[in-house]
């Protein structure tokens, strides 16, 4: 058990340090989602009342696309100097590596969301009508849902030709219930018209199911030959 946590924390600290020094993923994600926001503002230009109904969708579409940018880089980094092959032959638990990568991506996407949310509020003149604190569980659970499946499918698409395009093709269909939960839940809170409880429970279920499935199958994916 100690080796599990040791491997997990070592990988996580290494990834954070790499990101802190290069800021590759964060910068590209930030600029990418900024572009998405600006394009959305030009194309819709809504009134405050309308924007409450559409912003839930826009925010999560922007974050989803931006997250793919970061997820594509997580494993590609380990291909250099055959790090992943070295990992495969070492006796270190595969799930520790997977969890470390997922937590790292979760942190990066959370930072992005924290920085981008004020921009959405400014651009769309937002004023929350429902219980605003519910946005926090929706954001946390929704981000984990994207990131845990995204990390898994990024490891999967590593084995394919043109892997950059493969990740969204695998990730988006499976993520549809989670995206629906995030979007509908955010809209419910913003408009205050109905309760977001159902969507929080849905996201929680989704997270539990797919975290379990990823942990159960990641070893097979990593060692598939």
């Amino acid at each position, binding site marked *: 058990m100690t080796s599990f946590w040791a491997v997990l924390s070592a990988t996580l600290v290494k990834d954070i340090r790499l990101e802190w020094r290069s800021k590759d993923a964060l910068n590209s994600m930030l600029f990418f989602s900024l572009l998405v926001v600006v394009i959305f503002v030009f194309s819709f230009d809504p009134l405050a009342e309308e924007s409450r109904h559409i912003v839930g969708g826009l925010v999560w579409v922007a974050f989803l696309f931006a997250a793919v940018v970061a997820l594509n880089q997580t494993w590609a980094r380990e291909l250099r100097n055959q790090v992943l092959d070295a990992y495969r032959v070492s006796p270190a638990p595969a799930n520790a590596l997977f969890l470390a990568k997922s937590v790292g991506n979760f942190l990066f996407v959370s930072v992005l969301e924290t920085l981008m949310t004020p921009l959405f509020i400014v651009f769309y003149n937002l004023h929350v009508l429902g219980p605003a604190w519910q946005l926090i569980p929706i954001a946390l659970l929704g981000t984990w849902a994207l990131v845990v*499946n995204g990390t*898994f499918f990024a490891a*999967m698409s590593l*084995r*394919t*030709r*043109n892997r950059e395009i*493969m990740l969204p*093709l*695998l990730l*988006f*269909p*499976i993520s*549809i*219930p989670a995206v*629906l*939960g995030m979007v*509908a839940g955010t809209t419910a809170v913003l408009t205050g018209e109905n309760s977001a409880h*159902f969507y929080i429970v*849905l996201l929680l*279920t*989704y997270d539990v*199911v*797919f975290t379990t*499935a990823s942990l159960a*199958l990641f070893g*097979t*994916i990593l060692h*598939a*030959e």
Partner: protein
Amino acid sequence: MKKIFPILSIVTVALLGYALYLALVVAPTDALQGEVYRIIYYHVPSAWTAFLLFFINFVASIRYLTRSKASTEMGAKWVAIGIGVVGLIAPFLPPVRRLIPPGMEPSAVATTIVLIPALYFLVGKLFPGDRLDVLAVTSAEVGVVFCTIVLITGPIWARPVWGIWWAPGDIRLTSTLVLWLIYVSYLVLRRFSNSAQTQMLAAALAVFGALDVPLVYLSIWFFRTQHPQPVIGGGGSMDPRMLHVLLFSWLAFLLFGFLVCWSRFRLELLKREVEQAHAMESLAGAEDSEKASLPLSRGTR
């Protein structure tokens, strides 16, 4: 085996022709929808066939994933048996019985659930080893074709009856679309993956897709459905003559689907044999050329 194929083809063509005749001439016209409704004799059988094929894909993928280790294979076997035993008993217990929609018999539910482990063991018996993966790719491909038929015939029917081509809030419509998307992405993965690891990756994706389906269904649960209620055991009212035609049509479609799967299965097996032969040939060729160019080093060994 090969003699049965043409005979079965003739039978299938006859059955499909007779089903068409039943659907267009014999089945009574619907009181509310008129003649348009007759499309269900193609729509619903295609949907059932597609779902069955996707389920076979799921079972084959699970078996393929678990077969690498004896312990996981044992575990999966006991889970399948457990599902069968619980499914056989639970529908008759009063608290569960209350959850079953009115008009649906507990015995029917129990039989349906018992079919799950039956299929699990049947697939394992009939398709040993790598044939499981061939079965998975075959059922996914044919399933996507049938699912496409469902998604095309659905809007054709919905336009005159509902007045719209597509109802985004409808639970079965959206779930079927998402199911179709998941299996198309499964086929894309198989197409783009390197041959050695494809089977494992595809099997893992199939399991993810199967886990996703109930969540998709749950996520659209909130919206009120516009779809007609289930035909079999769902308490929906349907003329027995219509039901008869529908079930006959399904029989014809099942046989048709089986034939298509069978020929696709043989094709895939042949393709793999050819690939293997090519690989062996080039391996032998490489050895020969090695022998020719380095006679001394081979000889000293």
